């Protein structure tokens, strides 16, 4: 545990050194240094208008994550238990997963309009497929004896899925959520960058033409922190769920 901490501090020190070296090479107008960026970030965090932007992004991400997780789980459970459906659908899902989702954004906008719904939908769109594929794979990999014994204990089909198959596949499901929710965060940001009037993505898009690079970097750091937090939470949950097995 302590070793990990030392390694992380060393990594942070290397990153900061590189950052300063780049700042010296490129000049502070193009790449503001850690000090300037840190001060800007603190200033922004204290600004109520900026706090609203954060709240808008967080709200959209929470909703998108909820959608991605619940729809992904349901789709994954269906694919994992119905082999014919999954033979039919999985090639399409894998194709969709590989597709740059930006190409779909005009369609999403057309369907939902510019605003909260579009960026939520766009965020969720990024997360559903990995959650579904991991869930389906996790269920298919389970020993058949689990479902068989559940049937002899009087569980109907749906109860077998919710009470036995999903809990049994939990480690794989959490691994899917870890990837899916990171992509959902990314999707939410991209959604905001292209068409939203509020949120960190739109802050970014307004800062870029102004060459306000300190703000651009501040938002990037906030996003990185958010992504790391999501990842860390799910990584811990994965480890805890696998601990007893």
């Amino acid at each position, binding site marked *: 545990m302590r070793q990990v901490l030392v390694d992380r501090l060393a990594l942070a020190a290397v990153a900061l050194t590189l950052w300063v070296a780049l700042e010296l090479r490129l000049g502070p107008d193009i790449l503001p240094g850690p000090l300037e960026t840190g001060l800007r970030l603190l200033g922004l965090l204290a600004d109520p208008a900026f706090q609203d932007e954060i709240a808008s992004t967080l709200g959209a991400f929470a909703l998108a994550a909820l959608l991605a997780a619940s729809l992904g789980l349901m789709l994954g459970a269906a694919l994992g238990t119905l082999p014919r459906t999954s033979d039919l659908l999985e090639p399409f899902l894998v194709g969709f997963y590989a597709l740059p989702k930006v190409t779909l954004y005009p369609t999403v906008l057309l369907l939902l309009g510019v605003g909260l719904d579009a960026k939520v939908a766009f965020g969720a769109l990024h997360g559903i497929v990995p959650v579904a594929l991991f869930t389906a794979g996790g269920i298919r990999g389970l020993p058949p004896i689990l479902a068989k014994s559940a049937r002899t*204990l009087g569980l109907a089909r749906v*109860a077998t899925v919710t009470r036995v198959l999903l809990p049994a596949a939990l480690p794989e499901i959490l691994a899917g959520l870890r990837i899916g929710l990171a992509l959902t965060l990314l999707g939410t940001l991209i959604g905001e960058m292209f068409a939203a009037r509020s949120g960190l993505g739109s802050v970014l898009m307004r800062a870029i033409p102004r060459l306000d690079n300190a703000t651009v970097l501040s938002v990037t750091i906030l996003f990185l922190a958010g992504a790391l937090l999501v990842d860390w939470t799910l990584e811990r949950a994965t480890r805890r769920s696998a601990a007893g097995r």
Partner: protein
Amino acid sequence: MEAHLRLEGVAKVFAASGRSAPVPALGPLDLEVRRGEFLSIVGPSGCGKSTLLDIAAGLLAPSAGRVSFEGREVRGATPPGLGVVFQQDASYPWLTVSENIGFGLRRRGLPAQAVADRVEEAIRLMGLSAFARAYPAQLSGGMRQRVCIARTLVTEPRLVLLDEPFAALDAQTRLLMGDELLKLWRRAGATIVLITHSLEEAALLSDRVLLMSARPGRIIETLATGWPSERSSDLLTDPRFAALTQRLWTALAPEARRALGLGSEAA
């Protein structure tokens, strides 16, 4: 009296898959289990014993024939009142020992206190008291199998199908678990069908022993042991036990050789 469990003309042929030919795994066979008896089914490995159990429990559709439990046809689902203990470990790794054992009971809408009481008693009976809060991964294979046996028995089935339940246990624990099973059987008055490859186990525990042929398994012989219902592993030293085991082996040896692909004259 009507049979508790009846199989009529039951056969199973597993369909061809890929390049492999269809596999005739079982039968056709007829089988009658009497209410309240302790019946063992012995056969060489691969002769279709587990397939027979799956069909009797409504988990697998037979290719031919029909199954009835308490006079009703078994089809597509395990009827209430019929409990199954599988050959493989079927404990749920995300639940503790006591949660595993209470799993089937909780689905029945029993009051929480009644569930807790019954689970506690089953844990004590199976010698798992020190492990009530442990997870299956922390237990030995034999202990996990005891969890599965308890999970089925707490639901108080009227007929229990057990598929080589003691295969993962060492010889002494096997004998003790056999005695426990006999006590449970006498106390609960349930019907027991024990699938085993152990002649000694069958000879010691059962009222009747059915012998199966090599695959596709058929019933080749039925033997009544004549034991009183008050019996235990003390019978091991009884000369009648040795004679019984000898008779079973005489009938089964040719089938066991056939299952291994050895000639009938092989020594």
